[in-house]
């Protein structure tokens, strides 16, 4: 068990190292000088070289990389090339907003997927199961930002029940916060819920065919009780995998949704930085998102061990 955790931690650390090198290398090796990009086409050579000197772009690449990673480890991602502002506090503020959005969406997705997926599996030969399957198939085909636009059209434009965009911090006005959170969280949550539903269905279907479930039924348990007592834990492993992947998808999907609903999250920061050609901010935010994805994967790996005792011994 401990060996397993150590193994996964090592994988996480190596992944973090390699991916930071990838992000850095990607931004550096691409044609285009960050200083020149930041200053635009009209900048003079003198301006460009002054900026290069100021931000240490004249140093050897390895040194630049190490100072960047060192900064990240100390939670200091540096100073923006364009606005000269500290990037750290901005990322911290924006990350909070994005995390609230992602957490709300995930809650909606899980709340939809677990009951409906199980229902679809139990009723997979009946019309109700088929209808749910078809609905989820359509849900999978609708991108979250499109769902967002459609939800705005219905609930903000036509019915005028909810605001079309904006963000209020929860501490400032909880009522307004919830109203503004609902549509973006629904757009992400509904689509991810549709994807998740299909996995829950297939995982439960697999379990329904297992011998131990037949045994449980033979002992006299009702189908639902047998499923709850013996089935769901076994169905959980593939579902948790997908949940982890989806959390990663949600973090990135939030980038687009924040644009749709004008929410000041990490995605807006990223896209604004692209618009301002502020490459160091782009590099930092991408790295934050990648770190988040890797940590989610790590946590999923640990969750397996908690769910499935069979995985706790190192099988070779």
């Amino acid at each position, binding site marked *: 068990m401990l060996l397993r955790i150590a193994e996964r931690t090592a*994988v996480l650390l190596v*992944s973090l190292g*390699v*991916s930071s090198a*990838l*992000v850095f290398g990607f*931004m550096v090796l*691409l*044609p*285009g000088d960050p200083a020149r*990009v930041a200053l635009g086409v009209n900048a003079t050579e003198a301006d460009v070289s002054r900026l290069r000197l100021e931000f240490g772009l004249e140093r050897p690449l390895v040194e630049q990389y190490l100072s960047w990673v060192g900064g990240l480890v100390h939670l200091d991602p540096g100073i923006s090339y364009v606005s000269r502002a500290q990037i750290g506090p901005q990322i911290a503020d924006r990350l909070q907003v994005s995390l609230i959005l992602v957490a709300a969406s995930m809650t909606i997705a899980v709340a939809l997927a677990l009951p409906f997926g199980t229902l679809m599996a139990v009723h*997979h030969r009946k019309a109700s199961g088929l209808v749910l399957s078809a609905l989820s*198939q*359509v849900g*999978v*085909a*609708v*991108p979250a*930002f*499109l769902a967002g*636009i*459609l939800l*705005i*059209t219905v609930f903000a*434009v*036509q019915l005028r029940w909810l605001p*079309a965009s904006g963000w209020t911090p929860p501490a400032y006005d909880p009522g307004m916060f919830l109203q503004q959170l609902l549509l973006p969280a629904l757009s992400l949550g509904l689509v991810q819920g549709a994807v998740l539903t*299909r*996995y829950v*269905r*297939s*995982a439960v279907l697999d379990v329904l*065919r297992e011998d131990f479930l037949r045994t449980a039924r033979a002992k006299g348990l009702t189908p639902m009780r047998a499923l709850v007592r013996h089935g769901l834990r076994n169905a959980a*492993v*593939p579902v948790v*995998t*997908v949940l982890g*992947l989806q959390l*990663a998808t949600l973090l*990135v999907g939030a*980038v*687009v949704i924040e*644009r749709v609903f004008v929410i000041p999250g990490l995605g807006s920061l*990223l*896209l604004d*930085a*692209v618009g301002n*050609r502020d*490459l160091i901010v*782009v*590099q930092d935010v*991408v790295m934050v*998102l*990648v770190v988040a*994805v*890797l940590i989610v*994967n790590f946590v999923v790996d640990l969750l397996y061990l908690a769910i*499935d005792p069979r*995985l706790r011994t190192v*099988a070779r």
Partner: protein
Amino acid sequence: MNRLSRGAEAVMPPPGRRSRAGVEATLLVGGGIVAAITVLALVSLVWTPYDVGEINATERLATSSARHWLGTDKFGRDVVSLLMVGSRTTLLVGLVSVGVAAVIGVPLGILAAMVPKWWGEVLMRANDLLLAFPALLLAIMLTAVHGQGVVTAMIAIGISSIPSFARVVRSGAIGVMKTEYVVAARAAGRRPIAIALRHVLPNVGSLVIVQASVSFAIAVLAEAALSYLGLGAPPGTPSWGRMLQEGQELLFVAPRLEVFPGVAIALAVLGFNLLGDGLRDHFDPRLEDRR
């Protein structure tokens, strides 16, 4: 469940268990949608109801009529024509990015199955790392330096689809490597490259086709999102995602301008998803419901 099969679970949509008739219906609907979009895109090369470059101030925001079936946009451009030309962008981005992903991912997967197990694991770990870079992030990074463009989008989506190809192909190829005819070929002294081309590649072909269809759907979604964010197709290149972006400011005036490209995107994704599902079941010998 070991690490390998867990990874395969992660990239492969859940298996459908349907009757033969259900599979044929899925294939028919999915294939039909894909074929219809392809035909529209091809027809748009030679004919569209109106010229999409033409700005017509007198017919701005017209509703559906006999002249303009789905109305016009804020520049007076015909929506049907825009949708037809936009389908070209969608299909082009899908084709090129899936092509890029397959050309790199398939050999990588076969390689990872043929080299000693330890090396295969390392290759797959590196491959997994790419999964931490979704298409959108890669495209945003590329765009930040390179500027927006369809080519940037295609490369970014292509690169981010490599891991799923490599993983699916590897899991299939490992099985092929254990078959008697491969063992026999190796014993006969066939070179690895010949085994890869003659025996492994044809046997994982069906997996590649299914994955291509699924990846195509993902590429359509990614392209739409990128163009919506203004990071994909540049202004003047009709694209469904771009239409959504341009229509959003008019949401309170003409919501239908969002609905039509939205439906087009959803239909395209649905079509490729169904086609992929149908093909997977079609190639699956264990088709009959086991209950």
